[in-house]
């Protein structure tokens, strides 16, 4: 197991328009997977923790948020049992259920992953707030079991959430080194849920195949994941502070963030570095030469102005990380999305998923609580600020593209709802 927390950075979780294409056409990604000698590799399904959280990053992701439509808690329990069995098979490279030989009935598996191997597939299930209470209704008698730490995200400046792509009662994250394997897994699980649940929204993703030991680069061209927040036990796994059924589980936030990369590409490199707080090529903190050189946030020029700007990504991320570890190690948050498109012209947006953990609201200097949470550098990076009305519909630059879901991940052996009170 990698010592680096896969939640600790956004690396490995980037989802972009390119990912959508790859999933739809099974083109480049599928060919790469076919050529990969690792397609027969498996990741364990059973264990102390669910797979797909601390697992070394796979290259492909398919994430789905699920709405429960049944009114009976027994249906939910049966669904989760069914999913558990199917997921165990799928991660072993098998079909979701035995195919059988009767050709006069629908097949138990659609078959598109036959011959592709397990490709290190992991399947991670999550419980969303809607499992516990939906529209104020304790429909399954589970309200009392909602973990205290499973809180709604606060507003982030620039949020433009789409209701249809926000929230969900359950989640499935499939990760593999073959996009079709990941897609297939989610499709089979959704199929098994017919009558009890239906898919609400989904998002594909990919991550870089970086050399072992190197820090991957994100779509902004910067190394992403140099800093890690601490040990998995400290910042990922739920311990004694959580309910018994959550021990060894975790929390995840999924948020689609639009980056206006055309605008970003036009920014001078040194300005990009000021926004991130690191040098682009080396990944070193501003003013330093080595990627892992210490980040000196107190360094100032002769006038006392910070060498790493107040709103630099590394400064805000560090503040968030410090507060999270000290205060609420299981609280999750994500980087806030941009609030504007580019000034005029055609906009080409990239959608990304950010999975992160153990960060509370992004805080800045002199702020209290979450008051400055919105000042994520990502917003500035991706927000070619035009005076005041950048997001006006009249400018046609601000499609509402963001969504989020907050779910808790759970141990495999706990993939049944906590018992409803008598």
């Amino acid at each position: 197991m990698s010592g680096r927390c896969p939640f600790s950075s956004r690396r490995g979780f980037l989802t972009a328009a390119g990912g959508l294409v790859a999933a739809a056409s099974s083109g480049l990604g599928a060919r790469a997977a076919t050529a990969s000698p690792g397609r027969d590799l498996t990741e364990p399904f059973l264990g102390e923790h669910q797979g797909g959280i601390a697992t070394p990053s796979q290259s492909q992701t398919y994430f789905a948020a699920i709405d429960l439509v049944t009114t009976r808690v027994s249906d939910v329990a049966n669904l989760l049992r069914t999913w558990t069995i199917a997921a165990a098979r799928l991660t072993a490279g098998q079909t979701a259920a035995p195919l059988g030989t009767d050709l006069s009935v629908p097949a138990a598996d659609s078959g598109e992953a036959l011959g592709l191997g397990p490709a290190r597939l992991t399947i991670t299930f999550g419980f969303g707030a809607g499992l516990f209470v939906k529209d104020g209704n304790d429909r399954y008698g589970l309200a009392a079991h909602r973990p205290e730490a499973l809180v709604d995200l606060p507003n982030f400046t620039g949020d433009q959430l789409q209701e249809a792509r926000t929230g969900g009662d359950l989640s499935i994250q499939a990760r593999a080194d073959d996009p079709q394997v990941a897609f297939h897994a989610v499709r089979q699980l959704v199929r098994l849920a017919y009558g009890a649940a239906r898919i609400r929204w989904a998002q594909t993703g990919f991550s870089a195949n970086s050399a072992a030991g190197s820090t991957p680069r994100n779509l902004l061209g910067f190394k992403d994941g140099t800093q890690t927040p601490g040990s998995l036990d400290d910042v990922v796994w739920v311990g004694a502070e959580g309910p018994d059924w959550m021990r060894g589980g975790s929390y995840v936030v999924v948020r689609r963030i639009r980056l206006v990369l055309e605008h970003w590409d036009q920014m001078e490199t040194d300005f990009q570095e000021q926004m991130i707080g690191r040098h682009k090529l080396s990944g070193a903190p501003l003013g330093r030469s080595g990627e892992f050189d210490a980040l000196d946030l107190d360094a100032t020029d002769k006038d006392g102005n910070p060498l790493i700007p107040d709103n630099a990504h590394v400064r805000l991320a560090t503040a968030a990380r410090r507060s999270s570890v000290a205060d609420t190690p299981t609280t999750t948050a994500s980087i806030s999305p941009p609030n504007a498109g580019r000034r005029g012209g055609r906009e080409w947006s990239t959608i990304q998923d950010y999975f992160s953990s153990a960060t509370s609201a992004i805080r800045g200097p002199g702020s209290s609580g979450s008051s400055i949470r919105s000042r994520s550098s990502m917003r500035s990076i991706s927000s070619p600020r035009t005076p005041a009305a950048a997001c006006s519909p009249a400018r046609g630059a601000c499609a509402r593209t963001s969504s989020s879901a907050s779910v808790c991940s759970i141990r495999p052996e706990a993939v049944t709802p906590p018992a409803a009170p008598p």
Partner: protein
Amino acid sequence: MRLIINLRSADAGFRPRAGGAMRMPGLRGRLTGLSVVLALSASGTALAAAPAGGLETMHRHTTVTSTVPANGDQNPYALIVAPVSSGKIHQGDVLIDNFNDQNNLQGLGTTIVDYNPETKALTLFAAIPRHLDKCPGGVGLTTAMAMLKSGWVIVGSLPSTDGTTATKGQGCLIVLDSQGHVADVIAGPTINGPWGNMAVVDNGSSATLFVSNTGFGVGAPGQDVVKQATVLRIGLSIPEGKPPVVISQTVIGSGFGEQADKGVFIIGPTGLALGGNGALYVSDALGNRVAAIPNAATRTDSAGIGHEVTKDGLLRRPLAMVMAPNGHLLVTNGLNGQVVEIDPTTGRQLQAQWVDTDKAQSPPGSGDLFGIAMTPAGDGFYYVEDDMNTVVLAH
């Protein structure tokens, strides 16, 4: 008029903020060590006097707070420093209102936040209902805001329903008590889009407000410049424990240019500041000038667009404005991130400092600096950075 670019040491005169220089080495390379001095005179003679006690003394720029409340309102506009403690407000607190709502639509912001420099806490001072019976068009808080010694806070509204002037309402002035509750609404035929930084003469039991109106004759974006903006003087009587009562209204300035704008909603006279000589200085954005209205507190007629104090030079659509303790005006530019220091008695533009160097805009910092206010000690100034939804202290 001549523009003089004077080479000086880096320790004197115009320079981009130090932090900003780090953020934009390109600009630093061009500007550090330069002192840009513009001298104006009627004869056209260039004068390059060394400024004293002004911008050149302020080297640090510290982000002190976000301005976004829990409801997600954005785009900080008005920025004032509380003259007294009353209700929720402590003397010296910084009050900031938001012009945009959480969807970043202009003319729909309804909140005022309070930043306490001692505790560094940001709290919500007021969340005004989107619609008030006596405020035509609803509520979208503008750069017009003042707090009186009696504790009352008065804020302007130039509302929209779609983020543009196509749906703009006439607006109003809203009177809030020091708990942030709406106490009264001031509206009428002389008020249409109260917009600019409010200047105040406050005698406790009475007060005089000066506010620009940029809504008269303004339609949807794309419209030509309309020369109907006014400067209105409002006389208030403030009975003990009761909201201010309007006792007089006089249009003391008129015919200023105003224009609907897709990007910045509306362009018009924005900065208002009183001089010791009884003049009210007006930043005439479309005229790219600063004008003076003589005898502002006492005159009984309109001075039209006033007489010109200074024009062009370092000015790039002058926006927010404040009077510094040294008697100089600090004027922000709408079309770049600079603050320009002007001696209003001579009309000299003394120096400029590039305080907002955000290169995400071109030129850096364009359209960000809608609010500026001096610190109580007069040793620095606060300004809003609209692009970041923050308040920065220059000191």
